[in-house]
């Protein structure tokens, strides 16, 4: 069922009053589909992160556990490869104190990403995939969690010398086909949200995957909810003569890190 215009306007006014937010113009002329996850934050999330036309689309596959076994490292995998012409993928957690998890621009990569997120409480994880026509294709899952993920200090702060391994990286790269690589990379970083007492905000906020020629294959903006030691899985498109991928990462203190990941030739199996 679609919200009536009056309801949408009513909610818009309410959110303007209570949250001090501007009412987006779209709320007046476009109808927002009903939220399959039945979240109180739906209108707010949609207007903040998916401005414009929104459709609920099962072709956006969002995998997440029903229960967070570890609320500091909740695994989420997004597969939007059934959609053509994907411009960006935006992931948000409705009920996190900082909802925005990441934005992926899969310039020359499949519309696919795996990541891990800190959850402050049970929440919908919502993913909007914007295609070239501007439409947001949205889907998501609800994850139950014990809580405290965003306001707890990173495990790194239990160590005296965490800064010595800052930016250290581990990665596995392989070819899924002649034209497609799979890249799993883990970057050592505390990813401080600024919400744990006495620990200022400090997180890795940008990652770029490039070809040896310097072409950007995928660009990721990351935000505070990404788990400590961000672990990302991507599927860059590579031609068969490419034997390495370059990864560039930067954090909010402007520390920069560069890595070269070998891409093995396709194996016989």
């Amino acid at each position, binding site marked *: 069922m679609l919200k009536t215009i009056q309801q949408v306007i009513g909610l818009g006014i309410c959110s303007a009053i209570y949250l001090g937010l501007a009412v987006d113009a779209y709320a007046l002329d476009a109808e927002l589909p009903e939220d399959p996850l039945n979240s109180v934050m739906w209108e707010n999330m949609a207007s903040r992160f998916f401005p414009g036309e929104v459709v609920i689309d099962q072709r956006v596959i969002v995998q997440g*556990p029903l229960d967070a*076994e570890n609320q500091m490292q909740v*695994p989420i995998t997004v597969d939007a490869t059934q959609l053509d012409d994907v411009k960006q993928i935006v992931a948000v957690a409705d009920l996190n104190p900082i909802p925005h998890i990441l934005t992926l621009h899969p310039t020359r990569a499949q519309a696919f990403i*795996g990541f891990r997120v800190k959850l402050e409480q049970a929440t919908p994880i919502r993913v909007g995939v914007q295609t070239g026509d501007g439409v947001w294709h949205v889907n998501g899952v609800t994850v139950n969690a014990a809580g405290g993920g965003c306001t707890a200090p990173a495990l790194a702060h239990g160590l005296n010398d965490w800064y010595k391994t800052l930016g250290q990286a581990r990665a596995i790269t392989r070819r899924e086909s002649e034209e497609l690589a799979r890249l799993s990379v883990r970057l050592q970083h505390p990813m401080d949200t600024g919400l744990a007492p006495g620990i200022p905000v400090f997180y890795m906020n940008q990652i770029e995957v490039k070809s040896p020629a310097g072409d950007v294959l995928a660009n990721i903006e990351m935000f505070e909810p990404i788990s400590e030691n961000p672990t990302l899985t991507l599927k860059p498109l590579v031609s068969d003569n490419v034997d390495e991928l370059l990864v560039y990462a930067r954090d909010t203190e402007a520390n920069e890190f560069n890595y070269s990941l070998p891409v093995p030739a396709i194996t016989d199996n």
Partner: protein
Amino acid sequence: MTSSLLEGCSRRQVLQLLAGSAACACCGSVHANKLAYDLAATEIASGTWAVHGSTEHFTLENGGNIVNVAFIEVPDGVVVVDTGPSRRYGEALLQLIEKTVPGKPVLRVYNTHHHPDHFLGNQVFKENIVAAPQQIIDNILSEGDGFADNMYRLVGDWMRGTASIAPTVALQDSTEEVGGRKFSLFYLSGHTSSDLVIRDDETGVVFSGDLAFYNRAPTTPHADINIWQESLQSIAVLDRELILPGHGLQDNTGESLEQTSDYLNWLHTSMQDATGLGLTMNEAMELPLPARFRSLDVVETEYKRSVVHMYLALEDELMPLLEPK
């Protein structure tokens, strides 16, 4: 908020609620009645009773009663192995012991490890008889309160009045005589950092704690799989008549050890493979389970939990370190 809570309640229930005569008159049948564990003792060997829990997860319906607890009649009293998930469970257990072995005092309580379903009934027993290896005591002191909090979240009012109480007796000898009966104590680990295995030398019953699961998928939140496998080998060669696993029915053939070992071996190997392929945890969770494990209780959910437990350490082990450029 209040009005949504009351939706679906009958007028009588609402009135009851407003009168304060019931805290939650309409939240479901389990809460409509006074919560009570329906504990039953099964004599698995001479003078040895198992109190079997279900092989489910913690739920609001089972109140955390998913664990095997045992008690043994010895010449001068009773020995208890593990105390269940809550104070209320501990009280029910004490009543069951008194009904089964009337007039005999509990002389010794062992905790096999520090997981909440095994020790949160401790507080109903005299403090100076509750015993475990020092590492289990330390584990309870550091993690017990967190476990208790989480149990309140998972099973709710069943936990009322429950507090995390660590054993006061630190075991270190390889045998112990209690009330005229000799027990052998084996200081193993792998399911957690300290797992106590107890053998009643008279009956040959081995209380394996959660080193053995039987027809129920093993849990791995604190597991070290390689050490766990070594511990299973150690139990396999013990002189024994019967094993009471931490979860599942008693086992007189040792099949529980083989099943646990087989599952852990498969789990470890397939997690290594998944990590090596760069699969995401979610993709690993969707891998098919081998047919021989599909009949294990709660295997689908335990397997998914184990992916989360094992992946980070396996990434440390299997993902090559990159040199910064």
